[in-house]
């Protein structure tokens, strides 16, 4: 089997087998456009460091099965159990999307309070027409195989008393699996919300999860968004979040990559109207042979507007991480303030970080800054702690944890703090294996 490209003949057969519904015309258009390009290769500047061969291999395996077998998506008990356990740890209104399908029982459980403040609809179940974008190869692939779309509208007025949780969980119990998840979030003017996007997986077979979220902040809307990626270390993910900000809206986004084997995240922020404020924070912890690639792009189309970005990474073993932060200040976007920082802690000399801030400025009256650091723990801090009686391991642990905790502290979604902190502690124990 050719593992350098998606088998488009198989893909066409699988798309053709999907039941006809309101998504069909979008699928066919996306299929046509995907077939022209296939997946991006490392010759593409934005994909230089991330070779998709393992993802292509899983996808072709799954396509072969799907082309000959039934196209049904079955949800394993493991998924239900995982969702219940997570709900007991993070208090939120959870909507579960399993292998791309919105779980209707989770919608039914939202309850009266939540439904007064938001609308949540499964496009497939309601047979609704929902135009979906398909601008880039990964998103086209997602659209071509789309079975369902979750559409959420956050209403104006009082905010929800708890965060809205979107659990994107994928199961690979029955064999190699790929999934296409699609969420569209809209906000009414001046609405406010906390949103958790949680990526998880179950099952021992290879898995590629491809998730795309489209999100628009209306005038004056304010959203605190947390993305937590806690996948099985053998599983792959491509995740994309496209955000558009209208006048005076505010987004605070915190991303935690704490699991996964091969992970690529794209966060595209489009500042479409003046007065918007964007804060992006990120933390990635990688060990073994994990590969975590974060690409962010902020388009300052108008000013005044402010964006702040800080991503941090801790790497051990032979892991490899990529941080690419692009900020484009378009012509006329005067009054733009764009700041960006990326700090990395390398716990092993075999780990690799490729960090690249990219600033493109076409306006005159702007303030922009960026900086990146790669290094080990501050020796003077280690000595300071030891001089107070903490032994070397303890001092190292405390400082490593503090490096990560700074990013946790940036998120105002208190409901996830304990959970994220315990995941980080657990991960740091694994990473500590790469200390020596």
């Amino acid at each position, binding site marked *: 089997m050719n593992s350098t490209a998606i088998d488009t003949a198989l893909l066409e057969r699988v798309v053709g087998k999907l039941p006809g519904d309101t998504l069909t015309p979008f699928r066919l258009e996306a299929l046509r456009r995907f077939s022209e390009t296939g997946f991006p290769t490392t010759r593409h500047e934005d994909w230089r460091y991330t070779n998709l061969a393992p993802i292509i291999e899983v996808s072709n395996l799954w396509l072969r099965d799907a082309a000959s077998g039934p196209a049904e998506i079955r949800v394993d008990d493991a998924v239900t159990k995982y969702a219940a356990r997570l709900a007991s740890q993070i208090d939120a209104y959870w909507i579960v999307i399993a292998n791309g399908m919105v779980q209707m029982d989770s919608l039914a459980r939202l309850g009266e309070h939540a439904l007064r403040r938001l609308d949540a609809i499964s496009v497939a179940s309601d047979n609704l027409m929902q135009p979906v974008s398909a601008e880039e190869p990964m998103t086209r692939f997602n659209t071509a195989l789309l079975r369902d779309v979750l559409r959420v509208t956050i209403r104006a007025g009082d905010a929800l008393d708890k965060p809205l949780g979107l659990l994107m969980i994928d199961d690979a119990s029955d064999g190699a699996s790929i999934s296409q998840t699609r969420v569209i979030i809209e906000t009414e003017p001046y609405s406010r919300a906390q949103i958790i996007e949680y990526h998880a997986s179950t099952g021992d077979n290879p898995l590629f999860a491809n998730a795309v979220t489209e999100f628009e902040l209306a005038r004056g809307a304010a959203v605190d968004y947390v993305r937590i990626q806690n996948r099985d270390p053998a599983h792959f993910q491509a995740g994309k979040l496209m955000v558009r900000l209208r006048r005076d809206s505010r987004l605070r986004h915190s991303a935690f990559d704490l699991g996964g084997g091969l992970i690529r995240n794209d966060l595209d922020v489009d500042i479409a109207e003046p007065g918007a404020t964007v804060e992006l924070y990120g933390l990635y912890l990688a060990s073994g042979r994990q590969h975590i690639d974060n690409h962010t792009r902020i388009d300052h189309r108008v000013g005044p507007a402010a964006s702040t970005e800080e991503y941090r990474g801790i790497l051990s073993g032979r892991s490899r991480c990529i941080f690419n932060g692009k900020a484009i200040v378009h012509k006329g976007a005067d009054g733009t303030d764009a700041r960006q920082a990326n700090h990395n802690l390398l716990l092993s000399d075999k780990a690799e970080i490729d960090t690249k801030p990219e600033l493109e400025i076409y306006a005159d009256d702007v303030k922009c800054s960026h900086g990146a650091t790669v290094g080990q723990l501050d020796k003077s801090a280690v*000595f*300071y702690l*030891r*001089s107070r*009686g903490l032994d070397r391991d303890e001092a190292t642990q405390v*400082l490593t944890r*503090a490096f990560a905790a700074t990013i946790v502290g940036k998120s105002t979604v208190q409901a996830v703090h304990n959970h994220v902190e315990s995941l980080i502690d657990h991960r740091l124990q694994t990473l500590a294996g790469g200390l020596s």
Partner: protein
Amino acid sequence: MLEITNLKARIGDTEILTGLTLEVNRGEVHAIMGPNGSGKSTLALVIAGHEDYVVTEGSVRYMGQDLLSLDPEERARIGLFLGFQYPVEIAGVNNAYLLKAALNAKRRTQGQPEVDAFEFLKLAREKMALLDMDPALLNRGVNEGFSGGEKKRNEILQMAVLEPRLAILDETDSGLDIDALKAVAKGVNSLRDPDRAIVLVTHYQRLLDYVEPDFVHVLSGGRIIRSGDKSLALKLEEKGYDWVREAASA
């Protein structure tokens, strides 16, 4: 308590301590004075166990033990405390957390039960009141965003909580306004005890107006060139260091 004999130490290729001898007994307060670059901070850091400094000759004995064979944390746990000239800012590590971890590390080593959160807070608040410190600093990152004076008070707070047997305070008075200086001096004086020794490393005589030393030593060129009582400090203040150096080389 502390016996330093013919100590020689270098950093990289530069020899900084060139044969230093000093004896400090329990209950005593010593002041070590000297011009910039004379080796004062190096002496403090070598005693605390900083890895950048290599001891090439001589010995340091503390309570009868070979101090130089111990790790920095072992030295701390048997009652040695260094107040840093430049306390490190550690974002993300809670000040209270560090204090409690340090106190319990010492207590474990000395066979005492660990303090719980309640006992610890009571103790910390008591000591902070003594030093006229804002209790909110307890919940900040260690020295994170502290002013110069707050950092130095925080060092004294750590000392007050840890109750060391031997405290070495490296330029604790530098950069302090008069109120902060008085608060720091109050903290130091509160720890004067027949079983405890304190070594003040300082450039100026100012602190010694508030903390009266039993002995004053002049460090120059990496060794002690003159020792005396409190009046030596006053003479240095008046005449500078040159006359001691001239007298020593004569």
